[in-house]
């Protein structure tokens, strides 16, 4: 019994909690990608670097707040920076729309042109971020680091295994939940949100109904910038900020959006968790887990790891390829890719 509980706590600690937090971050990222795809009808490759840009602004603000001695007590100071960072990121993204995408929209360019243009925007943002904050690692987590510490859990439960629940993980899950609820409320209940869904459903009929496409596009960019900033900040609090990592996040984010079905917000959330859990479940070393569960003489010698963590991006790739081969519209039947 004790062994079984230890094994379960082990899984919760190393698989379930990290994957849920990571899944929340991916879901928020994928939501931004899927919104842009639904309305502007292209895959925005600059989204990962939009996340990096937003996070960079949050970090700069965090440093500024810290220098002034302003903080949020147990919560990370970064949270205070998010609203201003969203504003700045939205402005930046709207400028890229004004300077890059709008021209192609007016020319009714095919979506591949937008995609290539977004790669250009990606490099630009990438450069701006590295120029301002540098290519190195930044840790900006402060406040109380743990909600549950390993020692407190061990003392409370009397088990060998400790369970850690970090503030950044709890925040990721809670903030993602709040943001998703707010986003769905906006899309389902408000006039503007409904006009966005209408535009995504049937562009021509939306025009005939008097919906202003430029306004819909603008709100989409603002939402995508907000989602990117929040997702990036949560990821950075959880795992640290490094521009290159954010660029790499593009792959799991796109895998998540495509698994769920591009253009489907519900799908993006489901996809985020599917990708996160696949990554963590497949790269975790189960040696200790089986040692608890099996009799001593059966205890495994190897690490019992299906894939090395170096291959975690391969998992996103495999998911992406499988979905595109078997069900190109994703689980929730979004637009075909």
């Amino acid at each position, binding site marked *: 019994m004790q062994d079984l509980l230890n094994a379960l706590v082990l899984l919760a600690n190393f698989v379930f909690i990290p994957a849920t937090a990571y899944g929340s971050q991916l879901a928020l990222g994928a939501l931004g990608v899927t919104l842009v795809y639904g309305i502007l009808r292209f895959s925005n490759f600059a989204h990962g670097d939009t996340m990096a840009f937003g996070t960079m602004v949050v970090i700069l603000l965090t440093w500024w707040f810290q220098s002034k001695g302003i903080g949020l007590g147990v919560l990370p100071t970064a949270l205070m920076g998010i609203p201003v960072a969203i504003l700045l990121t939205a402005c930046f993204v709207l400028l890229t729309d004004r300077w890059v995408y709008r021209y192609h929209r007016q020319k009714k360019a095919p979506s591949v042109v937008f995609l290539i243009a977004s790669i250009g925007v990606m490099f630009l943002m990438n450069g701006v971020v590295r120029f301002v904050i540098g290519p190195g690692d930044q840790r900006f987590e402060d406040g109380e680091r743990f909600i549950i510490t390993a020692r407190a859990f061990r003392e409370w439960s009397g088990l060998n295994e400790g369970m850690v629940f970090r503030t950044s993980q709890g925040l990721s899950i809670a903030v993602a939940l709040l943001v998703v609820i707010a986003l769905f409320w906006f899309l389902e209940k408000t*006039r503007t949100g*409904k006009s966005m*869904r*209408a535009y995504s459903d049937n562009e021509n009929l939306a025009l*005939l*109904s*008097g919906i202003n496409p430029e306004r819909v596009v603008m709100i989409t960019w603002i939402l995508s910038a907000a989602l990117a900033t929040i997702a990036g900040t949560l990821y950075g609090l959880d795992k640290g900020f490094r521009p290159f990592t954010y660029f790499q996040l593009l792959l799991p984010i796109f895998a998540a959006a495509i698994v769920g079905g591009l253009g489907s917000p519900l799908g993006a959330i489901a996809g985020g968790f599917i990708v996160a859990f696949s990554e963590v479940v497949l790269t975790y070393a189960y040696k200790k887990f089986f040692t608890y569960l099996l009799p001593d003489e059966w205890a495994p010698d190897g690490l019992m790891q299906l894939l090395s963590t170096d291959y975690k991006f391969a998992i996103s790739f495999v998911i992406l390829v499988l979905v595109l081969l078997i069900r190109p519209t994703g689980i929730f039947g979004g637009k075909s890719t």
Partner: protein
Amino acid sequence: MSFLVGQNMTGGYGAADILHHCTIGVEQGEIAVIVGPNGAGKSTAMKALFGMLSLRQGEVLLNGENITTLSPQARVLKGMSFVPQTHNVFPSMSVEENLEMGAFIRRDDFTATMAQIYDLFPVLKEKRRQPAGQLSGGQRQQVAVGRALMTQPKVLMLDEPTAGVSPIVMDELFDRIIDVARTGIAILMVEQNARQALQIADKGYVLVQGSNRYTDTGEALLANPDVRRSFLGGQ
């Protein structure tokens, strides 16, 4: 002078003209029907009236005002409403949301209009929480017409409203269209089912190769032996 009229319209999508000096008009409270063989330019004439293609010659007048250069969206604000032949609903949105989107340009309270549309199409009230994409073809056409009526238009234009629906549903739809016309709205529609459409038409236009061939009341066209022989399959 008709309430909505396209006079002497000449134009097409590219270099070649599809319409040649084509004139089509409709009065308030009346139903005008455009019929003709495939490729006669029926839908094109309709689109020209709604500003979805630019005219090389001719003009479009709404209640005496020249609207030839207005965009489709601007014409919606002027009181025109258009139901495309296909892709005429928001498939993932509920019936009620489809109607709400129809009323997007209205800032006043449109619940009364919505109630009228539910009276006109009772099945829509029943299915108002269901996504429009899950409805049958006939029901979807009702959603499409309902959406177009939400702006309280003066002119309603329908591009083949009965395409792909069963004969029973077609009769039902025509009955509803007559009901709409009785409220004083001008209705202009393109129809493949020429005989049935002309039966309810106050005015009929037979187009051939982008030009007016016959123009008369629906009744007279049905009685015209030439029209019957050429376009209504004999008898």
